[in-house]
């Protein structure tokens, strides 16, 4: 038996085996969609579109679900998850906005303007920043930034004005800063790679025609890599909407929908995202109604991240073929 294995394999057998293993990944993705959707089915079927509606209090609803027994009635599943969905979109959107500006600027800096010494440092810095575990950002947030905003930035009057509704702490502002910090390195790395793959003569031609280096970068290099920027933004958004740990640590822990009309307070209002709600209620997942509700949240996250990463893949496809011919 061992002797047979040791003999060189014919190509077709090796191809079949490698292909089978590779297809395992595709099968796993399909299984993931099926299993998560199956777990979420009770909530989707009982709630219908009202799952996406607003009204009611998410926290008390989930609290009430704790006591459900096996085969709970349809009413036990009722939940209006709009504050969570809104919180997810809000935090990810604002973080993306911040991170897009920072990463575009720093990618241009790394590729075109940084002195050689700084450029050599920037690579490891970006890589390290991307590798820092999310718990560390969460710790910095909850032990440093949240107390800082709560004690020094939020005024007593502001706090008193909403005393009976919500506690003001780090909330939106701190979460967005940390999320932006988490997704900036990913985007910077992707955009830097793309910028470096732009043929040098293109930009040099523009400079020779009289554009200054910055204008040349904006007009030629950044234009050429627009698909890569979109793809990077898509991947980063997928990361931001799915980030559970940081959000659950710093967002304030109240499923409130921050209202931009509130003025400055808006930045410090607490919220919850879909992912952080899953983490927060992980302990009580054995209660059937909570089980199904959390699966429904996971299904929403899976669906949106699936669309985002597929879009990023498709957008990048032509560019990638072009890069890999080098």
């Amino acid at each position: 038996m061992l002797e047979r294995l040791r003999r060189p394999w014919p190509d077709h057998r090796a191809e079949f085996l490698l292909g089978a293993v590779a297809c395992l990944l595709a099968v796993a993705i399909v299984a993931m969609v099926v299993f998560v959707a199956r777990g979420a089915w009770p909530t989707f079927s009982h709630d219908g579109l009202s799952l996406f509606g607003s009204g009611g209090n998410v926290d008390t609803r989930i609290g009430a679900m704790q006591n459900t027994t096996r085969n709970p009635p349809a009413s036990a599943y009722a939940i209006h998850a709009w504050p969570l969905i809104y919180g997810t979109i809000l935090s990810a959107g604002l973080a993306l906005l911040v991170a897009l500006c920072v990463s575009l600027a720093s990618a241009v800096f790394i590729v075109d303007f940084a002195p050689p010494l700084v450029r050599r440092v920037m690579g490891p810095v970006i890589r390290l920043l991307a590798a820092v575990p999310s718990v560390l950002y969460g710790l910095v947030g909850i032990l440093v930034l949240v107390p800082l905003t709560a004690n020094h930035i939020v005024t007593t009057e502001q706090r008193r004005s909403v005393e009976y509704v919500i506690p003001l702490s780090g909330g939106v502002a701190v979460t967005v800063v940390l999320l932006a910090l988490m997704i900036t390195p990913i985007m910077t790395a992707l955009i830097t790679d793309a910028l470096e793959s732009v043929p040098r003569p293109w930009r040099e031609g523009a400079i020779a025609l009289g554009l200054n280096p910055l204008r040349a970068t904006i007009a030629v290099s950044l234009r050429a890599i627009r698909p890569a920027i979109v793809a990077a933004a898509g991947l980063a958004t997928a990361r931001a909407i799915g980030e559970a740990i940081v959000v659950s640590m710093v967002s304030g822990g109240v499923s409130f929908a921050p209202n931009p009309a509130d003025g400055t307070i808006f930045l410090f209002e607490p919220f919850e995202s879909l992912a952080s709600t899953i983490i927060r209620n992980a302990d009580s997942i054995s209660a059937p109604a909570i089980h199904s509700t959390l699966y429904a949240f996971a299904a929403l996250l899976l669906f949106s991240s699936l669309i985002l990463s597929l879009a990023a893949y498709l957008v990048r496809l032509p560019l990638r073929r072009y890069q890999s011919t080098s």
Partner: protein
Amino acid sequence: MADAAPPLAPPRRRHGRRESVWRWRRSDLAIFALSWIAGMGLCVITSALVAFFAVKGAQYLRPNLLVQSPSPSVSQAGSGGFLDPIEGTILLGAIGLVIAVPLGVTTALWVLEFGRPRWLARIVDSTVEIIAGTPDVVLAIFGLALFELGLFAPLSFGQPGGAFGRSFLTCGIIVSAVAIPSIYTATRNGLISTPRQLREASYALGKTKTATIRRVVLPAIRRDIATGSALGLGRIIGDTAIVILLLGATLQTQTQSSTPILGLLRGTGSTLTSYAFNASPAGDGNAPTKAYAAAALLLVLVLVLNWCVGRIGRIGGPPLHTERRLGA
């Protein structure tokens, strides 16, 4: 031809007028300054982060924390160290890598070396992208759903009544998914940039494709695989959500049975990330100093891994290909 026209002198270079940033339009200057600020800002933030945790680690990380098991206690002094989370981190990293490396490398090999039918190869390629984009919470939920099935009950920590789906083994299987994309990408980049002549020389000697892959291509991309694995290991040990949902994040490592290895693999436990999460005010421990200490240790691990990634690229002379990508 006495008075031949003097040869055309090249246009005289105006000296001392190098293209200066200060001559740019003001709006351009502002953008230029912003790019400097963004780039240097990232450097400053990174060094501040490292310095912050270095100071906190120096303050709170004591040798005895590394060798004591955690124990539930109200007082900070009595709650022990984090030996179990360290062991959990190592064990989980090992399980994750053992699963992820073969999967990632095999997939990349198939997609790039064989890749027929094309549509299937494209599907697999995009699958990896999808895995990279899937939030870890969703992966964890999927793991719960999968391993709750009675079929997989032998893999996990469970009561006779019904399986919970939580154990080192199930957690390791799911957590390997966060490492697969970086291993796949690194292997892929290595394969793409391996010179074709290398393969052709092997074919010319009468080797089959399989033998070429095993004897020529794989040794040539060893370094890429190692880089990808180090990056993937960093992702695994930094993951929290999967650990909380699938490993149970219990304070101490609990073995399922007294069987030496299987009992541990089926047991529940915690890692440094989940320990730091639970010890922070967000968890129930509320021991910020312990959280800082665990986080500092975690950062040291990540720094070492990152250093390895940089180091691997330079082992044994210059690499076959000089391409270095940031987003590997």
